[in-house]
């Protein structure tokens, strides 16, 4: 069995174990309501994490996703407050906005050859500020809590049976993205660009275009999340999504996509997202201080990364040893 498969099995095992522990510790954990809410939480992070996984596969990073959520939710709320336009007009506009921001990120990264993290940190600042400015304000200039009444928009926060729509969308998107990555040429290009950009270019792949496309998709996913988030809250605040990038990074890393590029898949991310959501839910259900949460998220990133490097080292040494033995044997055979 491959290293990543074992890793995933361990993760699923842990997921189940934590789940059982939690349901013993607090009976309200194992209720349909709580589980569906947990899934909803996971899905909101997860949709962004899907886009982010593609970014990591190209060995990049996108710190602006949280701010994209903020700005797109502000775009929607402005449309809702000041225009009579129907949802099926402004929602596509908001999604397009997410793509456009991704394009800008990708442009700066590919054209000016600037480090991804600094470009996206800068756009993060710019977008977070713009979101505050764009927020709907009352006459005294304070941010107004607009209650969304547009039914088409609110439908995004509804359920089908017990399952939230966002959860369904999350899984459908995960399936489609995984399919895209593994079964289309463009998806293959994403892996190639991340694994070895020089070789990818030699094989005729336009790596710049691939990168820009990936950042656009990441922006799109963030924008999509903002709509589900606003629909669920029935309002939108300029702080929506700010700081959520750490949740997303943690989810993707738990899922097993490394920073080094060329590797990763969506199902790992889905498991990682569920894992993180479970832990966050557990902190809540165990009545722990909410301040534990950032410690856990930041800590998980460091611990998982360190463990992965350790294990990879170990596995490589073992593989090298067995390869040498094999070679010796074949030499003796000749």
């Amino acid at each position: 069995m491959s290293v990543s498969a074992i890793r995933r099995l361990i993760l699923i095992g842990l997921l189940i174990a934590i789940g059982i522990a939690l349901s013993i510790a607090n009976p309200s954990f194992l209720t349909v309501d709580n589980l569906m809410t947990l899934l909803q939480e996971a899905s909101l992070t997860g949709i962004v994490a899907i886009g982010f996984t593609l970014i990591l596969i190209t060995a990049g990073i996108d710190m602006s996703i949280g701010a994209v959520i903020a700005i797109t939710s502000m775009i929607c709320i402005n449309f809702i407050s000041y225009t009579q336009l129907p949802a099926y007009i402004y929602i596509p506009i908001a999604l397009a906005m997410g793509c456009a921001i991704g394009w800008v990120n990708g442009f700066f990264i590919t054209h000016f050859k600037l480090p991804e993290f600094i470009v996206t940190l800068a756009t993060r600042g710019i977008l977070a500020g713009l979101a505050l400015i764009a927020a709907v304000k009352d006459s005294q200039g304070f941010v107004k809590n607009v209650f969304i009444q547009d039914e088409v928009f609110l439908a995004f926060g509804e359920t089908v049976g017990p399952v939230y729509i966002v959860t369904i969308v999350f899984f459908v998107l995960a399936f489609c993205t995984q399919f895209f990555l593994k079964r289309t040429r463009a998806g293959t290009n994403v892996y190639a660009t991340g694994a070895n950009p020089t070789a990818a270019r030699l094989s005729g792949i336009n790596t710049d275009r691939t990168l820009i496309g990936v950042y656009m998709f990441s922006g799109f996913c963030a924008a999509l999340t903002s709509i589900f988030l606003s629909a669920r809250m029935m309002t939108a605040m300029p702080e929506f999504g700010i700081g959520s990038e750490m949740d997303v990074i943690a989810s993707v890393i738990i899922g097993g996509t490394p920073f080094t590029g060329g590797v990763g898949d969506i199902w790992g991310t889905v498991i990682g997202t569920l894992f993180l959501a479970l832990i966050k839910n557990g902190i809540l259900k165990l009545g722990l201080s909410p301040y534990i949460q950032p410690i856990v998220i930041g800590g998980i990133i460091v611990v998982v990364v360190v463990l992965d490097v350790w294990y990879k080292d170990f596995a490589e040494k073992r593989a090298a040893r067995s390869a040498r033995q094999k070679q010796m044997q074949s030499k003796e055979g000749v």
Partner: protein
Amino acid sequence: MNDPRNSDVLLECRGIDKNYNGPMVLSGVDFALTRGEIHALVGENGAGKSTLIKIVTGVTNRNAGSISFDGHDIPQEHSKNAAEKLGIAVIYQELSLIHGMSVAQNIYLTKEPLLSGLPIIDINKMNTMAQEMIDRYGFDLKATDVIDNLPIAQRQTVEILKALSNKASLMIMDEPTSSLTSTESAQLFKIIRLLKSEGISVLYISHRMEEVFALSDRVTVLRDGRKVAVLEKEQISPAEIIRLMIGRILTDNESHHQMVKKDGEVVLEVDKLCSEGKLKDVSFSVRRGEVLGFGGLVGSGRTELMRAIYGIDPFDSGTITYLGKPYVPTVEKSIAGGYGFVPEERRLQGIMGGISITGNIGIANLDTISSKAGFVSGAKELERAQKAIALLNVKPARPEVLVGNLSGGNQQKVVVGKWLIRDLKLLIVDEPTVGVDIGAKEEMYQTIERLSQAGVAVIVVSSDLPELTRLSDRIIVLRKGRVIKEFVEGAVSEEDVLRAASGLVEGGAQ
């Protein structure tokens, strides 16, 4: 030109000239390759082989001459993509494969078979197509194997399959066996012959004469940018090829460099050094004032040996004695103890391009320009830099110039210079004159000779045979990580070294 087999000619180059804003690298080279032949291109380093390949594959453009391939005239403004479309493929060592992907994915990258009418990759079809191709050629591969788990030889096979899937009619292989074991090489030769039987031409570049001899239908010999000879199958003999490659009309005195035995005290002694997969029982010693040359082909373990004795890479077994004491090298200890090290790849390992000459020289001399408390004396640092600049005649002689802006020769002078101002006992130089103009080359030789006269032990690693024979008092030839031959005393010629390096020495360690 009036070849009767003209209709069979696949690639024909006529009167190719090339200069990179300087001396002619190729002048008036004619070259023809017929369909389904294995054609070896041989020549010393710098003879123009790589340049010719680059021109044919569209990596660089020629200055004059014409090329036709498969009946198409190739314009002067040639491109890599155009060459590929015509069916010219280069087998890279491992550069163009994507890690994490399967064999089939690599073969069909960017041209994956799709489900009819849909933009969806037909994975089954892709795997079957790849496996069919693999089976047809009888390779020991599975289409679903992930590249990362394959040894280098099999990766090369994947490269070849990739070229085959592109319907390449010409495959160019540049030193394909340099990192293969002998069994793996034999496997590759089988594949090459198979390609030939399929009507595919192979242009083969190698320094290993026995390979050239065993494989080739014809051999073209280049020397100093000119075509010297084309040998037909029956004319090919390793000795003849080597004679043609070296081929200068030399006086007896020049062709046979007199080795001079030096009997100063031993500076460095290496005994039975082993490093898994790289070095096997390497023993040698070098004395004060001696220049010890290391010859051998690329991949023979020369660089690995130098890295091990300098303390960069650990080794598995063996002992090193330095200045009479047992020594376990680390870079810091080596520098403090009087080593100097000029690495093989100047741009990647030697210089810090964004930093001034002073800074580049200072970094290896921090111990001598700083106080015990760790403060650097700017005046001392500048003085050292100026000393090094003067010693080696670096141009421009301005210490504040960024090293990245210097010419190759002057960059190399800086890399060497930072050691010369130290109390040097042993200098290791790996390919000291690659990418260096002729004037700077000569200066480099004089510097090395001056050092040896001053009592420094110098180890020179070089693929440039005239360089090696000119500089060395003694030459050790490595092959596949072992010492295969040591030229100790008396006369040695480039031919002798080349014969040893390319495996034509009888009774070697193998």
